[in-house]
């Protein structure tokens, strides 16, 4: 009997020989992973089968409804290009954009974590002033759409205080070594102000969510723990550091990982304020070449790879945290 894979491979005319046999093999391996009852297997098979069918159906539909010639060959040149003068490969727009995205992610993650931890502790403080300040911060940002926040931040705040930091001066006055270090950390000198306003913007925005995660983590620890700490003579800070935090960290990691993944995706929003990251530069390439769909699909793939690998990494971290504490 012909398997469903053989039928599908035939129907979609895949160019790979024996694909159906390999898929069949994979399928039987998958089915053998855990000893399950016959009924569960059938249900699993039904679910997976209908998912595959749905995807194939959508692809088929798009193919017939959308009139579009797909071209992928031009893409590689915009990732890495051959430099005639240097006789070497040089990164082109998409790779440069990816580098900026990584810089944005790392710095804004650090900034957001710092803000989040400070504000999170303030949120659980016994002082009304601290609680009010961090409450105001969190509610102000959480109740605003990110796009609106980014525009308000960029045009009203960032344009006022980023020049005060004297970034343009740095790039003129600093020694070549300093510039070289800064270039690795932030990017090309003419983009310093650009990247830094992006980092501050994302850091402030994501910090609000991290504040809530930290607060929840601290408050989830039984009050008895704090009381026990204080009864053996620890100060409030010591109790937090040695009793509450170690327990809270373990609970906080999964939601924190989710927030970091959101942050990576959110970096694409700052393309609206012309931060030269992956999404923005991809848009430039799309406008210039007019291969829009290829570019967007590629960009989607890149974000997926980054986010998914971070998710895997965090899963591992989580298991380790469980072992330590």
């Amino acid at each position, binding site marked *: 009997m012909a398997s469903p894979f053989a039928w599908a491979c035939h129907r979609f005319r895949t160019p790979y020989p024996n694909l159906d046999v390999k898929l069949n093999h994979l399928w039987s391996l998958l089915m053998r992973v855990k000893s399950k009852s016959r009924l569960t297997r059938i249900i699993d098979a039904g679910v997976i089968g209908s998912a595959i069918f749905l995807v194939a159906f959508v692809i088929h539909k798009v193919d017939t409804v959308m009139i579009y010639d797909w071209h992928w060959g031009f893409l590689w040149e915009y990732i890495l290009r051959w430099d005639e003068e240097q006789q070497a490969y040089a990164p082109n727009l998409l790779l440069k954009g990816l580098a900026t995205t990584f810089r944005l992610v790392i710095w804004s993650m650090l900034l957001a974590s710092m803000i989040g931890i400070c504000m999170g502790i303030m949120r659980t403080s016994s002082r009304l002033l601290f609680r009010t300040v961090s409450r105001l911060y969190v509610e102000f940002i959480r109740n605003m759409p990110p796009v609106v926040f980014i525009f308000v931040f960029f045009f009203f705040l960032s344009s006022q205080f980023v020049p005060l930091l004297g970034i343009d001066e740095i790039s003129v006055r600093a020694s070549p070594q300093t510039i070289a270090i800064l270039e690795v950390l932030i990017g090309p000198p003419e983009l310093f102000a650009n990247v830094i306003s992006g980092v501050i913007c994302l850091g402030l925005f994501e910090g609000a969510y991290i504040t809530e995660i930290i607060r929840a983590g601290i408050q989830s620890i039984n009050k008895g723990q704090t009381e026990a700490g204080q009864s053996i003579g620890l100060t409030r800070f010591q109790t937090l550091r040695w009793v509450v935090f170690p327990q809270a960290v373990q609970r906080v990691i999964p939601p924190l990982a989710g927030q970091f993944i959101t942050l990576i995706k959110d970096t694409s929003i700052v393309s609206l*304020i*012309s931060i*030269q990251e992956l999404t923005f530069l991809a*848009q430039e390439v*799309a406008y*210039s070449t007019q*291969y829009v769909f290829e570019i967007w699909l590629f960009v989607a793939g890149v974000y997926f790879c980054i986010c998914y690998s971070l998710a895997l990494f965090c899963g591992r971290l989580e298991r380790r945290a469980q072992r330590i504490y």
Partner: protein
Amino acid sequence: MAVLAILLTPVSAFAGELQQQLTSESVIQTIMKRGKMKVGMATFVPWAMRDKKGELIGFEIDVAKKVAADLGVEIEFVPTAWSGIIPALIAGNFDAIIGGMSVTPKRNLTINFTAPYAHSGMGIVANKKLAGNLAWPDGYNSSKVTFTCRRGATSCTDTQKLFPKAKLRQFDDSSLVLQEVVNGNAHAVLTSFPKPTLWQSQNADVLFNPTLDKLTEGNEAFGLRKGDPDALNVFSNWIMVNTSNGWLQERWTYWFTTMDWADQVNLKK
């Protein structure tokens, strides 16, 4: 006489101060002091686009480079999302917009415009299947006809003016504007030359040009922050000089009437 002189002195002293202040605050002074001119622009074929090396090329890139060279300063381009380009100018992210921006009264209320350095024309491209039998131009002014346009672009207001009865769907991306017409979800789109002919040749079996006439003529000018007469004068006169010596026309001819530049970009065929 003496009385008059005494009366006038404080006024003229004040005027002198004001004049000095205006001059020292002009963006021209900032540019000269910095030794670099920052120009805001957005990618739009063939005004400004990325070549295979990732560098910017195009009509207004040539213009901005020559302005900087004539002022004796370096040039820095600040690629900016089109929808936020005016706020970004006002916020001071760059000194001027040289971005193929057409002069409209509404925009002129928030920023100043120089004399025009280009005159783009709006053309039309339509879907053969949907609009093939429509009479030009009256058939297009009907509630059954759908146009697309890029949000915030002049083509949106032009479409509404020329075809008030037609439906208009707005997109943020100029390529989606085209794709909707190619897919047959919209009848036609107004866009500035050379795009009507370029898009038609890229999709020759789906699209056609109901006419090759310019439907409207635009005036593209540099955008500047308000309250800066010096900059307005410097740039407007630069444009005047380069219009009369034919340089602007020569560059325009190269970018808008030939496709000699097409192999510098990986432009879709």
